[in-house]
């Protein structure tokens, strides 16, 4: 379990402009630099924010997915996804 690392990625995305630019251009490679489990990596990089939320990532940090357009998450699909109304395959 590395909920800490997922929180940290989302924290850095909002607070570190250079990190933000990197994750927005080479997203998977940047996430690979952190010690996520396979399950966490899959959920995180497929934009399955409900799964990431259920793993314990803080919702305030989670909103950085749509705020910064990570892994296909947008303002439009964020809430349908976190409410389980839109599944991520």
């Amino acid at each position, binding site marked *: 379990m590395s909920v800490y690392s997922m929180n940290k990625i989302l924290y850095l995305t*909002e*607070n570190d402009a250079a990190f933000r630019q990197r994750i927005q251009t080479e997203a998977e490679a940047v996430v690979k630099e952190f010690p996520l489990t396979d399950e966490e990596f899959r959920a995180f990089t497929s934009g399955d924010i409900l799964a990431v*939320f259920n793993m314990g990532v803080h*919702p*305030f940090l989670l*909103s950085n997915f749509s*705020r910064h357009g990570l892994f296909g998450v947008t303002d439009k699909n964020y*809430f349908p996804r*976190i409410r389980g109304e839109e599944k991520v395959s």
Partner: protein
Amino acid sequence: MAKLVMAVGVPHGPMIPWQIANEPGKHAAEGLMKDVREQLEAAEPDVIIETTSDHFNNFSFQHLSQFCLGIVDQAEGPVETYCPMPPQVMKGHPEMGKALLTYGLRSGFDLGVAQELRLDHSVLVPLHVLTPNMEIPVVPLYTNGLVPPLPQTRRCFNLGRMIRRFVEDWDRDLRVAVVASGVFSLEIGGPKFGTVDEEWTSAVRSMLEGGKHESLIRRATEPRMLAAGNVSGELLNWVTMAGTVGEIKPKFLETERGRGYAVWKLD
């Protein structure tokens, strides 16, 4: 001796300054903030203690204090990407910050210290709107209101009582105001986003209106606050402020959509 002259509480929504500047007459926050600002200006404070909650801009899981004083000459912001307002420079009051730190340690409150701050909307929206010239120095007191487990509500109230004693014992001829920053009911990023717990908002309002702080402490448990939304622990900033005013009633109190705007006059 220093004197606590006023305590106020307001929300800090990151869009409030933009809404006031660009959509005048459209948002309840505009008029309510103006009401609070005029009363704060009339109290003529020399220094402000702002009770607030960081939103993962200074602190994150790498280090998360439950309570932390900002002891800085000055600091800037807003640093976040989602708060469209003009850049601000907040003047600190390191002398007061250090004196409060020491007084707290000697009376059983071991507060953390940050000597460099990245200010976010939770600090700057109230200051920008209530003190637009940004000339009054500020000691921010950060409380963890966002990341459960939260500090105990009674602990926050007692922290406020300690702050009141500090102010009254402080050997400086200064007028002090407390500004509490935060909401009663709000969810960000979670499944309940967009809903407001009107029942809780109304209960909090009624307890504050009646000066029933003991009831507020008993009822504002962590589960009850979080049931009202995942950032509703920001109420703790109001509870700390309530501890500074004693059992008196507010001079002004309004609520809208989970937010409170209030003034306690002590002078």
